């Protein structure tokens, strides 16, 4: 009898609301999950690019919420921490300030960790810091140090201190992890720029959200439209259809001659 008195009455409408919230499809402009993982290949910078784009989108959402608070800082000038392990640096390079989005150019602090352990340490210390906008990590492969315990540790720290973590997993298999959202990202052909149709356009990625706590899985084409994130359904993307037409014939020589 006593146990029954302690339990809160659960109404059907609550359950319905919760499930509806959980089933809401992911879309740009939502606030960030505390711990997200982005799986990408080391063949290009799509992992870092997409993670950065998603992080900035979440920051914008956060700023929108802040703007309603009259006492909040208008201009977000918090630093971001970008941690890479040695293998990630070797395979995909270091961030290049001039290529970063203009609002982040002067706000990046880079940590070059020697091993995955050091990288995890740096990530955790970064998540504990109240002066950071977000922490970005790039770890190559599936190192032994990054097991479920380590992942859970990062999640809890991120949740406790409210600093989002974007962990890019390069050439990694999706092992056990406590990340709240897990993305798989590949480069996607970009839309043709208006003035030079032959040039590469704004960055675009094919992103698959394959595990999320609050959202059903789904696939999108994410693209960078003048600094803001745009998500379209895969088949509606304009450039997706005519990839074959853009390939030009090779002239004269074959690759065997190179």
């Amino acid at each position, binding site marked *: 009898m006593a146990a029954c008195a302690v339990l809160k009455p659960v109404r059907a409408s609550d359950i319905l609301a919760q499930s509806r919230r959980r089933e809401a499809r992911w879309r740009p402009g939502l606030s960030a999950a505390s711990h997200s993982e982005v799986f990408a290949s080391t063949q*290009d910078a799509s992992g870092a690019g997409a993670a950065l784009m998603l992080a900035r989108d979440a920051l914008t959402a956060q700023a929108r919420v802040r703007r309603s608070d009259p006492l909040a800082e208008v201009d977000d000038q918090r630093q971001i921490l970008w941690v890479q392990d040695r293998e990630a640096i070797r395979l995909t*390079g270091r961030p*290049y300030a*001039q290529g970063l989005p203009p609002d982040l150019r002067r706000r990046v602090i880079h940590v070059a960790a020697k091993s995955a352990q050091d990288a995890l*340490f740096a990530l955790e*210390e970064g998540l504990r810091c109240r002066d950071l906008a977000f922490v970005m990590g790039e770890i190559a492969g599936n190192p032994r140090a990054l097991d479920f315990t380590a992942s859970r540790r990062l999640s809890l720290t991120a949740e406790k201190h409210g600093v989002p973590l974007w962990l890019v997993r390069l050439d990694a298999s999706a092992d056990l992890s406590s990340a709240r959202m897990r993305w798989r990202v590949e480069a996607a052909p*970009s839309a043709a720029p208006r003035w030079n149709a032959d040039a*590469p356009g704004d960055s675009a990625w094919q992103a698959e959200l394959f595990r999320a706590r609050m959202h059903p899985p789904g696939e999108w084409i994410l693209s960078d439209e003048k600094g803001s994130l745009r998500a379209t359904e895969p088949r509606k993307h304009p450039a997706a259809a005519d990839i074959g037409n*853009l390939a030009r014939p*090779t002239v004269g020589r074959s690759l065997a001659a190179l």
Partner: protein
Amino acid sequence: MPTALITETAHGPRIDAVNDLGRAAGATPGMMLADARTLCPDIAVTPSDPTGDLDFLEKLALWAQRWGPWSALDPPDGVLVDVSGASHLFGGEARLIEDVHTACAARGLAARAAIAPTAGAAWALAHFGAKIGYSECILVRQDDAMRMLADLPVAALRLDSNVLTVLRRLGLKSLGDLAAIAKGGSGLDGNVSEASGRDALKRRFRSKSPTANPLIRLDQLLGKVPEPLLPVIAQTMPLVQRRLMEPIRHRSLLDQVLSDLAADMARELEGKGEGARRLELGLWRVDGEVLVRKLELAAATRDAAHITRLFTNKLEDVDAGFGIEIVRLRASWSEPLALGQGDIEIAAEQHGTSLAACIDRLTVRLGPEAVRRPAARASHIPERAQVWVPPLDHQLASQGTLDFYHRPLKMLDKAEVISVLYASPDGCPQRFRWRGKVREVVRVEGPERIAPEWWRERSSVRLRDYYRIEDAKGQRYWIYRHGLVDDGRGGMPAWYLQGMCA
């Protein structure tokens, strides 16, 4: 009204001190009261209080530190203050003496003050200077002390009374007489050497104690022999107490009061930079009983929880009676204890670390080279245009980049060689092999030509033609052709992949 302070002795009451009226009537310190009564029948008598006097003198010595950094007692009625290098703060020695007189008069004290290079000379001037007609009792180092003080009586040497008697019987009345013998040269036959004069005095007064040896005292007065003094240092005992609104009778309430007191004590001790070695807890009961519990600690501490825990064991047998109304905690022995660092870990757990603390932690573990910030440098060569600087250094202003210069998100530490199929001599790349895979170039933009920095580099360095490319899968890169076919700086140009676009 003539008044005397007396002490009872075996032979009857003896006078310790008299006031001016009593002195005028003929009473002197050291006289038997009965003798004084015959001279001045209406003399009033009060028992003297030597400990009280000493107590007052100690307080006076502390108060006198307003004129100098430290002071020493000179019982029964004197205070020595070291004013070396402090007199200019009062406008010179004369003004300092004036200030002493004013301040003492304001407190109702009759004072004689003197300033001299040595404690002995100052004492002599203060006690006997007025008698030989010095208006201002100031002796500076340049003065010939012996010549100025020659007229003072030998009593100015702070000697015991029996020694003074001997000197009087020897006919040595003034400092000048004594000094003449000690110096030699002015003996009766006129040829007594210095050594023989000193030797005579030394043989006569063999005592090592300064108060019994006029030679030592004379040397101290002239500054030839050091005279150590014991300074008076103010020490306050940290004390905290609670006067309770309602007498407490229960143990739980007492524990609460105790922990409050311990916290107060810890704060008090922290302010002084000390830790307690001995603590006394006094409990005043309503019925007048006082219970005292003492605690000795192995090492200086100011940990409130620790103190509380230790006292709790000692309070088992306390009988509160009708209640305890005052609880007082006193640290009767404390030792310096440096301020310890607070628990950073707990603070960090609760509020997060600051950026500086975060950088410190990272730097300590990973090394200063691992934690850096990219900064712009004035150069056209892409890898030179970015330098890595310490993260919290001031960021220099730099020229902005033009929007149509598309730069990659990431740059490889070392550009990787690729083999490229392109329309010779300077056409766009069409297909390339990188990391063992052949890729079709679908979109291309370029070239963006970046010439070598001739003012810095050798003349044989080749130019670079950069292309932004996208392959069939949409992967975007930044590659360059190093040189031209006919630039005369090498053979066929090589291709490199340097950056990866987002």
